[in-house]
């Protein structure tokens, strides 16, 4: 499978995961069958993990609350940070978990329905874990850009309707 073609397909799907296979094939000048086969392989090998949508929850009827939590950890012998990270990332309300360099160790992103839910998660679930030494919670007040997409004030098409 050509690496270039694979990359082209990935970048198209990253931009719009609902793009029809046939359209992708036309755009890349390939056959529909070939594109279909490559996508299946990408799914099978786990390069494509899942298909989702970028949602601006702030605009929806039931906005979500997001928080970033810095977690200081006392690493366990033999496991490093991985064991704790695994315990944290299994909570469905956790959107992402990263091991960080610098002032703290794990960065946990939470997306829940209310501020209370954030509080409950931190005090009941996170802070009670054995190796957690401390947490600092930052509430997200406004999202300007999410997953590479600008959420506020997109640039309008200011071009004249017909130009030579």
């Amino acid at each position, binding site marked *: 499978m050509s690496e270039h073609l694979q990359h082209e397909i990935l970048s198209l799907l990253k931009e719009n995961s609902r793009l029809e296979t046939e*359209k992708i094939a036309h755009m890349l000048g390939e056959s529909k069958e070939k594109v279909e086969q490559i996508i299946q392989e990408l799914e099978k090998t786990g390069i494509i993990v899942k298909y989702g949508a970028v949602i601006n929850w702030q605009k929806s009827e039931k906005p979500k609350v997001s928080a970033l939590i810095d977690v200081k950890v006392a690493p366990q012998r033999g496991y490093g940070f991985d064991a704790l990270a695994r315990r944290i990332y299994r909570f469905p309300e956790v959107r992402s978990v990263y091991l960080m360099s610098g002032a703290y160790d794990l960065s946990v992103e939470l997306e829940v329905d209310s501020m209370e839910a954030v509080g409950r998660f931190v005090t009941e679930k996170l802070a009670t874990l054995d190796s957690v030494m401390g947490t600092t919670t930052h509430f997200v007040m406004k999202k300007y850009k999410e997953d590479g997409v600008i959420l506020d004030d997109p640039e309008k098409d200011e071009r*004249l309707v017909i130009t030579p």
Partner: protein
Amino acid sequence: MNLEEKLSPVVKNLAPSGIRRFFDLVNQKPNAISLGVGEPDFVTPWHVREACVAALERGMTTYTSNQGMPELIREIASYLNRRFSLNYDEQEILVTFGASEAIDLALRALVAAGDEVLIPEPCYVSYTPCVQLAGGKPVPVPTYAQYGFKLRAEELEKAITPRSKVLILCYPNNPTGAIMRREDLEPIAALVKKHGLLVISDEIYAELTYQGRHTSIGSLPGMKEHVILVSGFSKAFAMTGWRIGYTAAPLPILSGMLKIHQYTALCAPITSQMAALEAVKNGLQECEAMVSQYDRRRRLVVKAFQDMGLKCHDPQGAFYVFPSIESTGLDAHTFAEQLLEEEEVAVVPGDVFGPSGTGHIRCSYATSIERLGEALTRIERFVNRKRQLLPKRSLG
């Protein structure tokens, strides 16, 4: 006092742009999807805009040298060398107000009363008026859909007379999307040398060449002294509104152009020159990303037109497709007007760009994939409807 009578006869007799009337029509349809736009739908890359803002903050608000900022000229020379194998010294380059000014400068520097200027058409709408303003005589040279709208030596040779002085080339071409590969340029170059012509080569769309690299006619053996290269940042770096371009030519010709430029324009705006410097130094990656997006849309649009049964040569440059609409039984103006009225999609009738464009429409794919897809659906519906109105041909 009749002020119109005071206008110089050349200006008075200049034909109004054929696009103007259509522009007014489209403007009455605020919801129309326009495939009539001859500029990128991308906004100038942020790092370029940011560089301009930073220059303003540093107080860069002055004139520059007439020729342009030395650092920008150095970078343009290096860029032309790296990308198109062209070798220009720094004093052979001039920074202008877009490629438009460069075309005007070249024509005014070269053309005297009665000199003939060969213009392959269909082509960008400014060449003929600029020749007329310079006192020259425009001589159209036809190109044909069956040859992919490439300029052929055969047609060119027929149009050459002892008064022929300049040939204007624009490849990749607006409006057809045609390009000239090296083997297409070679016979043209031979004619240029044989007749001692000069070529004004408008290569504004050079970066927008698909399936291979653009060949600049000035890079062919022995051609540099015949060529005035005209280009700019508008299309490659999505910088139309900055009005910044450049020209490169052998010193005696460039000096003539510089003389006009220094008296009429003084220098290109410093803010745009600073932005152009950032673009040419650090913008190629984003340029290539935009080109790859255009290429995808191009394939999609060409396929869609072919599926509709509209003959469409494979346009390998710029961001235009130029399908023939003759099979609908309509002429291009009626087609464009009815399409706008019935389906709210704007395209430009091909003969606006010259008689060889008759029976064709120009569709720009500098529009998002989503809008393109919707526009194509509407065009297909329209074409099918018009076909049903055609008298049925007997099958004999």
